[in-house]
C-alpha cells in the first residue's frame, strides 16, 4: 500500500497529492509518469510525476477529475492509502545541450501540471524558459505563482479573458513570436487539440516541438500495446517509446480517435461513481 502524505485541491477540478513511494522517488526524472490503482477492483491509470522528494521518499501527482477513477481518487485524503503505485515509467525528457537556449513551455488545462515540472527541470538545466499557460477561466487557474520564479515570462491566457489575456495558448505563442521572441524549442503539454494546434503553428517556422502523449494504457511496460500511436509513419508505444514525441510527426487525428475508444464505458463508470457518492443503490 502507498500512503497519501498530503492532499491539496488546487481548484475545483484539479488536485495535488503527495504519495509515499520511496523506490519511485529515488529514480523519477522529468517527463516520466506513474501508474496507480486505487483498490482491488480499480483500473490502472497513468499520471505524470509532478515532483519527487527522494529524502522523504515521496512522489507528487497532479490530476484532474476527468473520469470515475480520478473522481474517486479525489475523495481520498491524507492518511488513506493507494493499492498500487508503480514507476517511474516512460523515458525521461531529453534536454541535451539546452543550457543557454530559449524554450517556450506551453501548458493547457491539466497540462500545466505536467508543464510545470518541465519548466522547473529546464530552468535547472540552464535554459531560459517562457511559459504560456491556458485556462478556461480564472477559477481554474493553478500554479502560476509557483512558476513565476522559474520562468523569464509567464503568459496567462483564459478562454473568457477573466484573467491574463483572452484567447488560446496558441494566441499567446503567436504574440510572443510576432514580438520577436526566438525559441530553440517548444514544449506543448495538454489536451490533444491544443498540442496539435501548437505543432501546426511551429511547423512552418521549424521550431523543434515536443509533445507529451497521454494515451490509454494498462501495464505501462510495453506489454499491452494499447497506447500505440503513429509517429512519422511508424507505430510507437507511448509507455516505453514516449511519452514525449516530436509534435511535428505525431498523427494527432489517430491519437484523438483512439482516445475516444471507451467514451461510452467512461460514462457508465461516471454514473456509477455519482451513484456511490450520493448513496444510491449499487448495481
Amino acid at each position: 500500500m502507498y500512503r497519501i502524505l498530503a492532499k491539496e485541491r488546487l481548484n475545483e477540478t484539479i488536485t495535488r497529492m503527495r504519495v509515499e513511494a520511496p523506490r519511485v522517488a529515488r529514480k523519477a526524472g522529468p517527463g516520466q509518469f506513474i501508474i496507480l490503482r486505487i483498490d482491488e477492483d480499480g483500473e490502472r491509470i497513468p499520471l505524470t510525476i509532478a515532483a519527487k522528494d527522494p529524502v522523504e521518499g515521496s512522489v507528487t501527482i497532479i490530476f484532474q477529475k476527468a473520469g470515475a477513477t480520478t473522481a474517486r481518487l479525489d475523495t481520498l485524503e491524507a492518511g488513506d492509502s493507494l493499492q498500487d503505485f508503480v514507476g517511474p515509467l516512460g523515458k525521461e525528457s531529453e534536454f541535451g545541450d539546452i543550457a543557454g537556449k530559449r524554450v517556450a513551455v506551453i501548458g493547457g488545462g491539466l497540462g500545466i501540471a505536467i508543464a510545470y515540472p518541465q519548466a522547473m527541470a529546464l530552468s535547472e538545466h540552464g535554459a531560459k524558459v517562457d511559459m504560456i499557460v491556458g485556462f478556461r477561466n480564472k477559477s481554474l487557474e493553478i500554479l502560476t505563482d509557483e512558476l513565476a520564479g522559474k520562468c523569464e515570462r509567464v503568459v496567462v491566457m483564459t478562454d473568457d479573458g477573466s484573467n491574463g489575456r483572452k484567447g488560446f495558448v496558441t494566441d499567446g505563442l503567436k504574440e510572443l513570436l510576432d514580438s520577436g521572441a526566438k525559441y530553440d524549442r517548444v514544449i506543448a503539454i495538454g489536451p490533444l487539440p491544443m498540442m496539435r494546434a501548437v505543432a501546426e503553428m511551429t511547423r512552418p517556422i521549424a521550431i523543434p516541438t515536443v509533445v507529451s502523449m497521454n494515451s490509454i494504457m494498462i501495464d505501462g511496460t510495453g506489454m499491452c500495446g494499447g497506447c500505440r500511436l503513429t509517429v512519422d509513419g511508424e507505430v510507437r508505444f507511448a509507455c516505453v517509446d514516449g511519452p514525449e514525441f516530436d509534435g511535428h510527426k505525431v498523427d494527432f487525428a489517430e491519437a484523438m480517435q483512439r482516445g475516444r475508444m471507451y467514451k461510452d464505458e467512461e460514462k457508465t463508470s461516471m454514473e456509477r461513481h455519482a451513484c456511490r457518492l450520493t448513496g444510491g443503490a449499487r448495481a
Partner: protein
Amino acid sequence: MKPNMTPTKTPMPEQDPIVRAGNFQEVALGYTPEMAALEATRCLNCKNAPCMQGCPVNVHIPDFIARIRENDLAGAYAVLKGTNALPAVCGRVCPQETQCESKCVRGVKGEPVAIGRLERFVADSCMDTAAPVSPAPENGKRVAVIGSGPSGLTCAGDLRKLGYSVTIFEALHTPGGVLVYGIPEFRLPKALVRREIATLEAMGVRIETNTVVGKTVTVEELMQEEGYDAIYIGSGAGLPRFQGIPGENLNGVYSANEFLTRVNLMKAYRFPETDTPVRVGKAAAVIGGGNVAMDAARCAKRLGAEKVYIVYRRGEAEMPARREEIHHAKEEGVEFLLLTNPTRVLGDENGRVTGMECVKMALGEPDASGRRRPVAQPGSEFTLPLDTVIVAIGNSPNPLVRSTTPGLETQKWGGIIADEETGATSLENVYAGGDAVTGAATVILAMGAGKKAAAAIHAKLSGH
C-alpha cells in the same frame, strides 16, 4: 496388483460447452478420488520411467502415481512438490501430450496414462492441507528474481529451499506473470495461482510487486547497491507483435496481450463492477493459431460475441495450439477460418472497426520453420463484418531489462543469450531463462529453465 489395461484414459468431466461458453468458471472439472484411483492403476510403473525424460522439471511420475494407488495423497503431493513448485498449474496448462505423456509406454497401444489429470487431482486435493515445505535456514546469500511468472516462481522456490534469501520483483500489481494476465480463469482459476504463490511465500520467498526492473530499479543497482549476490531474469515475452496491415490502429483492434490482460488481470468481464472496460461487440476475429489465440477467442465468446472467428493463414494441422484447446474452442462455437490471411482492417467514420478484408491462402513449399508456406490466392478476397479484431501472432521479449543492463548480450531479435544448461548470461552472477531467452514458449519450459538456473546459481554461490 494387476495393471488396468483399459486402452483409453479415464475421462475427466467438463462443463457443458453451451453452458460454459456463457461463464468464466473452469471448463475441466477434475477427477473424483474414484476416477483418480482408477486411472492410477493404468500406470505400469516402468523401471526406467520414460515419462520423466519428457518432464522439464523432472517430476518423479511413477512414484507419485504409485502413491495415489496406495491412497497416500499427501505422499503423492510431497513427491510432486519435491521437484515442481506449481503442480496445480502444470496439471492444467502443461502440454502433456508433447511432454511426459508422449513418452508413456501405454501410449504405444492406446492412450497414455493421464499424468496431467492425476497431477491436477493430487495438487487440488492437498494444496490447502499439506504441511508447508520447510526450507533450509537462510544462509545469508541473497538472490533477486525478476518476474513472477512460472520461470521466476520456480527458480525462487528452489533457491529458497536451498537456504537462499530470495526476493521476486514483479512489474504488475499481482504476482503470477502470464498465469494471471494471460491464461484465462476458465483454464486456470486465479484463486489457485494465488494459493500456489502463497505456499512459496510461506516458505519465505518475498515478492515486491509494482517494481519494474529497468525502470524502478536496475539489475546493476540490485547487485551493487542492494547487495544481491545473484540475479535471475525471467521477465517473459511481453511485447506484442502486430501484422503491420492498414487499419490496425482502429478502435476495436487489440493485441491479444491487451485483450487478455483486460479480461484476466483487470477482470473486465465484471465491468462496471470493476473499473476496466473491454469491448467485444457482436462479432470478433482472432488472428493467429496458437494457444493465446484460442484463449482470446474463448474469452470473446464468453463476453457475449455471437460470432467468433479464428483467422489463420495455414491449415489446422499447422496450428501451434494444443489439440485440446482447438477442440474446446470448436465445442464452444468458435468458427475456424483456415488458410485465410487478413489484409486490411476496415473502420467507420469514428474510427471503429467494421470489418476485415481477408484473402484465401494455399499451402506451398515448406519454409524455414518446416511448415508449408501459405501463398495468397488472387481473386479470393472477401470481407468479414466485425466489431473487434484481436491480434494473436506472438510476442517479442520485453526490452526493459536488456536496454538498461549494460553488458547483457542479446540475440538480434531481442532474446537474452543464456547457456541452455545453466541460464548463465554474459554477466557474472546474472542468469536468465523462460520466454525472455527463448521467445514465447510454454509454462513448463520456462519452469524447467528456472529450475536449471536455480541449480547453477546454487553451485556458483556455494562454490561446489
